[in-house]
């Protein structure tokens, strides 16, 4: 368990670094695929099997194919002179490390984990054993269509708006139109 977490965490972090530090845009995209695959493994460790599958299908599949397609389409402009060790890179790196350290301190000191592996207080009814006995996807679906029906409907509206917006934006405009 801990070993799998360690490997997946290192791979995810290296993938993230690869996105930011790669010279070529295509290498950034491939690093992002690596990062997302490692995150899917972490989701499996967190008893979120359905979300791991969605992560692979939607992100590593659909979204990244779209990214690679656009990179291939815009190949000449996709190359970049990358700033190597400019002052803003150094400052940004220091800020990122500082942020991680602060959150780490808060997590290690501020949140106590009980002996049974749960946070103190505010425990909901959906323990992993119960969810897995009932069925992961069933539980998620029931919640989505009862308690969280309004966010679900708003998401469907958002997808419609995004589709219409993308069609409008990518329409080919002729001169004088």
């Amino acid at each position, binding site marked *: 368990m801990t070993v799998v977490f360690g490997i997946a965490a290192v791979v995810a972090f290296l993938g993230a670094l690869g996105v930011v530090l790669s010279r070529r845009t295509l290498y950034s995209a491939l690093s992002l695929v690596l990062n997302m695959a490692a995150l899917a493994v972490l989701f499996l460790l967190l008893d979120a099997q359905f979300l791991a599958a969605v992560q692979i299908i939607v992100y590593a599949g659909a979204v990244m194919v779209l990214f690679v397609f656009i990179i291939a389409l815009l190949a000449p402009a996709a190359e970049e002179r990358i700033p190597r060790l400019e002052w803003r890179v150094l400052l940004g790196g220091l800020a990122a490390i500082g942020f991680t350290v602060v959150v780490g301190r808060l997590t290690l000191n501020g949140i106590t984990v009980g002996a049974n592996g749960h946070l103190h207080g505010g425990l909901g009814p959906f323990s992993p054993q119960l969810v897995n006995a009932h069925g992961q996807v069933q539980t998620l679906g029931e919640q989505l269509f009862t*308690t969280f029906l309004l966010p679900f409907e708003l998401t469907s509206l958002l997808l419609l708006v995004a589709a219409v917006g993308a069609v409008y934006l990518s329409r080919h405009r002729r001169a004088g139109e």
Partner: protein
Amino acid sequence: MSGLFPGFLILSAALFAVGALGVMVRRNLLVVFMSIELMLNAGNLALITFARYTDTMAGQVFALIVIAVAASEVVVGLALITGVYRSGRGLDVDEMSEMRE
């Protein structure tokens, strides 16, 4: 099992910080966009971690919704990027200053 809880959260914070670094440092519009995806994924990891360790389902449901939001964001964003490219400008963020002032 309980020992991994801070690990997940710290990893989530580190991924978010790297994504924010990419948004601030890189000049290529496509890489900036990928860094935003990185930050959304880090948020998802935190949501699912808290869902697992508090025995609730809300985190997983909202992670699903975040994935849908990210997908629609990619669709609209890539359409905008191709539009910018087609209008004759490159993909350098620093060059796009028409809306300054």
